[in-house]
């Protein structure tokens, strides 16, 4: 275990001009991004609360502290693009524009949920919105992105596939096979590694012998970008650049957004592998407060966004709780088309 709190400075490897980006986005969209970050935070806090009260059967992986990655990345995509994400995926799913009610219903295993209560927290998908689902298998979505990219290319639809995975996933063999295939065929895929610096108890520093996961891009002959993952605009800029490259037929990019997981890995994690000080120090870099500050919002103005988000989440809980359980008579349904 590292005794030194990990307080690394994350240097962007592409220029990130906040003023320029804010001008391009416009104030309304920027505020909407902040609202989405607040919605994710509120959803995760509620999920944690429901879990603590014994109302959730299963596990969950919270993305509190990582909201900038989900929001920055998804805003850089266009309508009709595809999303593949991972187990810590509530944020990506919400930022993709999913209905918070249907997400909460899925989290609580209800028939009205996105996956009729069959999938749960780790498997939320919304195929109608080209959200091809979260994944319970670390790295499980990465090879699928090759097929999605191939299909886009064959169908000539100019869509892009955003594939989000963790630092841990980059050490599965599938990562290597997939990035290489995407590269040799110039597939329109954005590989976004949401590096929260730990894979469960494994610190990134022990699992890799390189400084930056984006360095791996050179092994595949594609661009690699690292950005501060707690800066929503930096993530936006990086993913936008990668998406433009993909859409114009030049192939994939590996984007690494460095962030930090505030909570334990999942439901039962004593977090013996890191210090309290380290967690506290990273909490000082709260992506929500940071963005609110950049937008010049006061505490009171931010509070309005937070309470609006909480209101939506409460309504979602009410919706989910009023929803029916799946009927046992339907248990055999849905295995085959």
């Amino acid at each position, binding site marked *: 275990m590292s005794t030194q709190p990990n307080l690394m400075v994350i240097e962007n490897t592409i220029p990130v001009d906040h003023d320029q980006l804010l001008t391009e986005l416009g104030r309304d969209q920027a505020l909407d991004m902040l609202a989405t970050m607040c919605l994710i935070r509120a959803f995760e806090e509620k999920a944690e609360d429901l879990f603590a009260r014994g109302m959730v059967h299963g596990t969950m992986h919270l993305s509190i502290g990582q909201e900038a990655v989900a929001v920055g990345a998804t805003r850089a995509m266009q309508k009709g693009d595809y999303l593949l994400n991972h187990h810590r995926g509530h944020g990506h799913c919400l930022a993709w524009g999913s209905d918070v009610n249907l997400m909460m219903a899925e989290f609580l295993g209800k028939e009205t949920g996105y996956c009729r209560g069959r999938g749960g927290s780790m*498997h939320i998908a919304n195929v109608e919105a080209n959200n091809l689902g979260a994944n319970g298998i670390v790295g499980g979505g990465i090879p699928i992105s090759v097929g999605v990219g191939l299909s886009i290319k064959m169908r000539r639809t100019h869509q892009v596939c955003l594939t989000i995975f963790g630092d841990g996933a980059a050490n*599965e063999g599938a990562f290597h096979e997939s990035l290489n295939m995407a590269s040799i065929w110039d597939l329109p895929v954005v590989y976004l590694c949401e590096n929260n610096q730990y894979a469960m108890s494994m610190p990134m520093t022990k699992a890799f012998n390189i400084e930056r996961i984006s360095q791996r891009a050179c092994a595949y002959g594609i661009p690699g970008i690292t950005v501060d993952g707690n800066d929503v605009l930096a993530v936006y800029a990086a993913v936008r650049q990668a998406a433009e490259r993909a859409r114009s037929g030049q192939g994939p990019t590996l984007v690494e957004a460095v962030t930090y997981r505030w909570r334990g890995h999942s439901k039962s994690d004593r977090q*013996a592998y890191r210090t309290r000080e380290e967690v506290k120090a990273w909490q000082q870099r709260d992506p929500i407060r940071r963005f609110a500050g950049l937008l010049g919002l006061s505490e009171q103005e931010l509070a309005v966004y937070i309470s609006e988000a909480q209101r939506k989440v409460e309504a979602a809980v009410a919706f989910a709780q009023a929803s029916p359980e799946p009927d046992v008579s339907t*248990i055999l349904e849905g295995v085959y088309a």
Partner: protein
Amino acid sequence: MREITYVEAIREALAQKMAEDPTVFLIGEDIGIYGGAFGATAGLIEQFGEERVIDTPISEAGIAGACIGAALTGMRPVGEIQFMDFVTLSMEQLVLQAAKIRFMFGGKAKVPFVLRMPGGSGTGAAAQHSESLENWFVHVPGLKVVMPSTPYDAKGLLIAAIEDDNPVIFVEHKLLYKVKGPVPEEMYRIPLGQSHIVREGKDLTIVATSVMVQRALQAAEQLQAEGIEVEIIDPRTLRPLDDVPIIRSVKKTGRALVVHEAVKMGGFGGEIVARIVESEAFDYLEAPVRRLAGLDIPIPYNRTLEYHAVPQVENIVEEARKLVKGVY
């Protein structure tokens, strides 16, 4: 005798073998300071150090390969796959390498390692964290497959598995980890390939594996009250399979029910049924031999659906009753 939990029994077996044999080491994801996802290796890194309790990146093919290579060259690794589901990522190394090396090399090499993994549903972990894949391995000559149902068996079988000169797939169950039972403090071995008669009875033979042994025992208690006496056999090792006590039992009872959690089609139950009907027990059968197993679906997330996806005590009671009463 002292009572400890199934997971404690596993930990004790690991610690005792490591203390005794310097070639034994542990390798897997989050098995060090985290102590393993289910706590099986808690405290072992403190006791044996990082050199013998090795945390890996998330690389299941690599873990399997590391076990094989180290085993080929004089070590006795015990690997951990965090959930049995993820062993699908290790399959090539296990099935095409570990299982075949000795044979392909004309018997001139050995690959002594154990790969531990928890299978099964019941924790709300959904379709990709609840698999029961033991029969995939049963189908592969060269592998051994062990599936303990009690703390006592877990310790004795794990020690025997580590001492075995072959690759052993050691299938634990998430719901059993907290189950307590009597376990001797000293080291002992339960030979691989020995079925165990868990309970004697004259009316029906139930062959059950893993958590289903516990459920069959509860069912047997209820059936006893109705005057039905159930004999329960736990194969404990699925490959090699000791079918002698099973066949003997069916000759006595004339009826057999196989219960496992894995999906029925292509499951281990088919093998047991075949062994019975291919044997002299066939002539003693008074009823069809039946299987009670997981439904033909992935494990659902919803708690109620998950419950109904695999055999429960009441299903065993009902099925046993039908067989004994002759109404199917």
